[in-house]
């Protein structure tokens, strides 16, 4: 498996299922945090290039929060959550009881709370992969960037540019109360790790 473009249909549906279970776990965790019911749509997995991804995310200059977590141990690679501003404002409101309207207003403390959410979201997806495959997967401390979508996406694009231009992209809607939250996740196992995941699931 040299790059994500060469994935078979079966492999894609396996990854979609991982995304599905991960999103289910994430919805449960979010419900705990927000102390509210959280519903989710069926996640859509796409294999697309960075430019199309930026378009889906509201254009290259749209400001987002990017939360990056690296996978370690049996599976190597990264997870990048792309959360829109409204989602971040809502989190800060619920968790820190602060009303904010721009990224500049986010305090240090709120920032670490957002990182913790990233940690929980990442854990939700990782435990889905771990449970299904029996593989040991560790996570590094999350890092956060509040910036233009295109700039955030340059990181995975460059890291994985050597593997071709297409990346695995999961779009997921969470519904809580009156607000619909769009969350996007880039899931990027290294080619060897992706192979290992597939083998562990008996898919080749």
């Amino acid at each position: 498996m040299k790059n994500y473009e060469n994935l078979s249909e079966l492999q894609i549906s396996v990854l979609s299922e991982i995304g599905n279970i991960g999103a289910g776990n994430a919805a449960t965790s979010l419900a705990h945090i927000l102390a509210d019911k959280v519903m989710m749509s069926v996640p859509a997995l796409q294999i697309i290039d960075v430019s199309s991804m930026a378009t889906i995310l509201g254009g290259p200059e749209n400001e987002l929060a990017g939360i990056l977590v690296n996978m370690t141990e049996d599976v190597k690679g990264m997870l990048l959550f792309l959360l829109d501003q409204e989602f971040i404002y809502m989190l800060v409101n619920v968790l820190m009881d602060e009303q904010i309207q721009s990224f500049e207003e986010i305090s240090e403390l709120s920032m670490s709370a957002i990182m913790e959410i990233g940690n929980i979201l990442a854990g939700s997806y990782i435990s889905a992969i771990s449970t299904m495959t029996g593989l040991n997967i560790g996570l590094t401390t999350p890092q956060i960037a509040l910036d233009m979508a295109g700039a955030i996406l340059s990181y995975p694009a460059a890291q994985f540019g050597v593997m071709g231009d297409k990346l695995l992209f999961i779009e997921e809607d969470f519904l809580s109360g009156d607000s619909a939250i769009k969350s996007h996740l880039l899931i990027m196992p290294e080619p060897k790790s992706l192979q290992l995941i597939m083998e562990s699931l008996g898919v080749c």
Partner: protein
Amino acid sequence: MGNLVIVGISDQQVAYPPDSLITYALGSCVGICLFDTMRRISGLAHVLLPQAFIGSDRHEVYKFADTAVEELVRSMERQGCARLHMIAKIAGGANMFITTGKSIGERNVEVVKNELKRLNIRLMAEDTGLNYGRTVEFNTQNGSMIVKTAGKGNKVF
């Protein structure tokens, strides 16, 4: 008012007044603006990675700093520009997330600068590094580079 000529990722364009060149949201990528001060012809390249590697697609010359800079110079020369009259302004090469060792952004900037030196093109201005994204617009009338950021202000070079 001229048109805004958009340069995508791993792409480059040449433009004349009154048009402007723009490339959006550079992170670790580098935007290279070249300007022929005699002919008033401008070029902008948006490179993703420092160098081509074994097995990379030979058609992707615009993707890598070590091939894209020279390619842009050649495209401008084909339109009558001369290296002697070209100046360069560059932006980007940020490190959006902390990495161990030298970041891709840093390496991109390094290779771009080496290429400019090798091609004997003077680097007049740069706004590179740090940890935030930049949109680069190049004014082909006067050769100024406008760098726009999210929350870090705008600058003219």
